C-alpha cells in the first residue's frame, strides 16, 4: 500500500512537476473558453479545473491523466445555464457526480465495451464540430482586426511548437497577443466583456435552488447526459493514457473518482468536467506519469489565476477563438475520411449518424445513444442471417441450417422450408447452427409439426450441447 502510494506519487517528481506546470499553462485558455461555451463566468471553469484536477489526483484510477473543465461537458450544460442560471448548473454538477459515483460502485464502466468504436469516432468528430461552431459567433462579422488576431493565433500555435517545445504554444500566443492588444489599444472584445475574474480561492456553498421535485426534474436529464458523456470521454482518455504509458488503470475507480471530483466541484462553484484527451497527451508527452502531475496542474493553475487574475480579463476573445479552433482541429479524427471508405458500411453509417444527430440536436449524449442503438440493430441484423440448404436423396430430404437462431432470425428460418412435401423422411441438421432462445425452439417445433401434418418423418440432428439443452428445457417432441 505504502509502496503503491510512493510509486504513484513520488517516483517521477521532477517530470511530474514540470509536466504539471506545462499542463496548467495550457489549461488556462481552455478553461476560460469552455466557460464561455457553457455561458458562465470564466471563474466557474477555472475553479472547476482546479478542483477537479486536484481531487482526481487523489481519487482517480489513472495516474497521469488530466481532468478539468471540458468542451464536451460545457456544450451539454449550455441550455441549462441559459434557461435556469448558474445555481441550477451547480446543482446539476453535484447530481452528475453522484450518478457517476453510483456508476463506479455498480461497475457500469464495464458497459463501456458495448460502445462500438464507430460511435466513439462519431463522438470525437461531433465534439470537434460543436467546439468549432461555438466559436463562430465570437469572430464572424465583428471587425477585421478580429480576423487578423484569429489568424495570427493559429499561425503561432501551429508554427511555434516546431521551434519552442518547452512552453505550450497557446500560452505564447495568449501572452504575446494580449500584450499587443493592451499596448496597441486594439479594438477587440475581451474575456472581461463576457464575465469577471475574482482573484480568490473557491469557497464552499450550497447552490441556491429550491429542493423540490421540480428542480430534480429540471436538472436530472442534464445530469444523466453529463454523467454518461463525462465517463465516455474519461474512459476513452484513460485507454489512450494506458496505451501511451504501457500501463494499466482501474476503470471503475476512475468512474467513481470522476464522480467524487464533480460532486466536490459543484459545492465549490465549479462546473462539471471530465478527463481531457488533449491535455492528458500533453502531460504524458511532457514527462508526466504520476498523480503528482495532475495535482500540480490544478494547483499551479489556481496559483496563476490568483496572481494574474487582472490580466486574464484583458485576454482578447479572438486569441481564445484561435486556440479553440486548434483544439477542435486536434479533436477531430482526420482518418475518418479514410474510415468512411474502408470500414464496413454499417460502421460508417453509425459514425455519420452519430455526428449528424449531435450536430442537429446540439446534444452529444443524444448522438452517442442513437449511435449505440443503431449499431446494435445493425449487429442483430448481421447475425440474424440464417441460411438453410436443401438436399434431396431418394426417399430422404435433408436440410442444413447455418447461423444463429433467435427471435430476429426465426422468420427467415421458417420461410426457408417448403411444407408441401409428403411421406418423406426429413432430417434437419443443426451442426452449423446455434439455438439461442424460446422463439427459436418454437419455430423448430412449428416446422416439425407442419411436416408431420403431411405424414413426414422429421428428425433433428447435429444439435450442439447448449442448443440441445435449450430444446430439452422447452420440451418439444422430437423423434
Amino acid at each position: 500500500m505504502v509502496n503503491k502510494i510512493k510509486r504513484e506519487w513520488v517516483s517521477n517528481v521532477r517530470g511530474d512537476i514540470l509536466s504539471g506546470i506545462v499542463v496548467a499553462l495550457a489549461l488556462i485558455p481552455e478553461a476560460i473558453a469552455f466557460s464561455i461555451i457553457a455561458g458562465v463566468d470564466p471563474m466557474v471553469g477555472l475553479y472547476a479545473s482546479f478542483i477537479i484536477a486536484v481531487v482526481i489526483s487523489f481519487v482517480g484510477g489513472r495516474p497521469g491523466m488530466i481532468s478539468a473543465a471540458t468542451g464536451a461537458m460545457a456544450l451539454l450544460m449550455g441550455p441549462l445555464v441559459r434557461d435556469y442560471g448558474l445555481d441550477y448548473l451547480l446543482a446539476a454538477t453535484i447530481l452528475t457526480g453522484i450518478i457517476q459515483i453510483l456508476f463506479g460502485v455498480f461497475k457500469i464502466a464495464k458497459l463501456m465495451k458495448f460502445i462500438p468504436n464507430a460511435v466513439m469516432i462519431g463522438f470525437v468528430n461531433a465534439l470537434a464540430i460543436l467546439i468549432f461552431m461555438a466559436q463562430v459567433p465570437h469572430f464572424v462579422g465583428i471587425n477585421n482586426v478580429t480576423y487578423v488576431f484569429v489568424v495570427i493565433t493559429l499561425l503561432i500555435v501551429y508554427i511555434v511548437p516546431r521551434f519552442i517545445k518547452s512552453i505550450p504554444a497557446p500560452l505564447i500566443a495568449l501572452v504575446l497577443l494580449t500584450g499587443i492588444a493592451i499596448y496597441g489599444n486594439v479594438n477587440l472584445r475581451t474575456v472581461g466583456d463576457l464575465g469577471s475574474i475574482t482573484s480568490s480561492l473557491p469557497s464552499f456553498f450550497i447552490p441556491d435552488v429550491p429542493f423540490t421535485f421540480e428542480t430534480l426534474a429540471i436538472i436530472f436529464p442534464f445530469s444523466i447526459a453529463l454523467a454518461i458523456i463525462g465517463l465516455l470521454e474519461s474512459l476513452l482518455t484513460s485507454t489512450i493514457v494506458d496505451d501511451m504509458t504501457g500501463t494499466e488503470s482501474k476503470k471503475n475507480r476512475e468512474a467513481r473518482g470522476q464522480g467524487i471530483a464533480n460532486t466536490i466541484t459543484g459545492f465549490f462553484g465549479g462546473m462539471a468536467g471530465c478527463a481531457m484527451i488533449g491535455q492528458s497527451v500533453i502531460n504524458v508527452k511532457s514527462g508526466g506519469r504520476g498523480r503528482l502531475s495532475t495535482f500540480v496542474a490544478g494547483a499551479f493553475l489556481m496559483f496563476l489565476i490568483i496572481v494574474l487574475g487582472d490580466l486574464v480579463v484583458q485576454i482578447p476573445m479572438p486569441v481564445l477563438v484561435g486556440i479553440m479552433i486548434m483544439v477542435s482541429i486536434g479533436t477531430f479524427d482526420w482518418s475518418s475520411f479514410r474510415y468512411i471508405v474502408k470500414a464496413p458500411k454499417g460502421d460508417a453509417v453509425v459514425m455519420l449518424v452519430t455526428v449528424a444527430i449531435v450536430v442537429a440536436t446540439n446534444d452529444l449524449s443524444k448522438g452517442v445513444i442513437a449511435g449505440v442503438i443503431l449499431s446494435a440493430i445493425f449487429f442483430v441484423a448481421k447475425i440474424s442471417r440464417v441460411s438453410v440448404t436443401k438436399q434431396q436423396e431418394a426417399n430422404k430430404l435433408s436440410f442444413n441450417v447455418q447461423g444463429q437462431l433467435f427471435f430476429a432470425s426465426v422468420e427467415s428460418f421458417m420461410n426457408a422450408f417448403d411444407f408441401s412435401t409428403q411421406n418423406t423422411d426429413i432430417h434437419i441438421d443443426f451442426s452449423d447452427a446455434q439455438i439461442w432462445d424460446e422463439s427459436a425452439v418454437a419455430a423448430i417445433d412449428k416446422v416439425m409439426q407442419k411436416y408431420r401434418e403431411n405424414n413426414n418423418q422429421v428428425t433433428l440432428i447435429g444439435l450442439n450441447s447448449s442448443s440441445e439443452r435449450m430444446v430439452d428445457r422447452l420440451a418439444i417432441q422430437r423423434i
Partner: protein
Amino acid sequence: MYNKMLIAVDGSEHSFRAADEAVKIASLAKECVIDIVLVAEFSKSKDEILHSQGKEELEFSRQKILFPLEEKLKAEGLTYNITILHGEPGTTIIKHANEGHYDLAVVGSRGLNAFQEMVLGSVSHKLVKRVDCPVLIVK
C-alpha cells in the same frame, strides 16, 4: 561479426528495406541476437485507440506489422526478440539502443523532403548523432 543487433521498424516501406539489409548481415552471423523494436508513437495513440475495438485488437494490429519480417528471420533460422515501445520514435529508440549495448543499429531513412525535414527533424539523423553504437541507415 555482430553479436547483438537492433532493428527499428515503423511499418513503412523504408523500415522494411532496412530490415532486409539487417537480415542479410545477420545471416552471415547466425549466432547474432536480433532485437526488433517497434515504436508506437505518442501522436498516433489517440487515432489507433479510436480505430480499434479493444486492447487485444490494437496489440494484434501492431504485431501484424512485423509478420513479414518475422517470416524472413525464421526462414534464415535467426533468433529474434520483439519489443514494442511507446513514445516519440527518435528519443525512444535512442534510449533503448544505448541501454541495450548493441553492436549495430539498423534503421530506415524515412525519406522526407527538405521542407518536411526542416520542420519535423530527421529521426535517422538524430539516431546517428546520439546512439553510441554504429548505425546503419538504409535508404
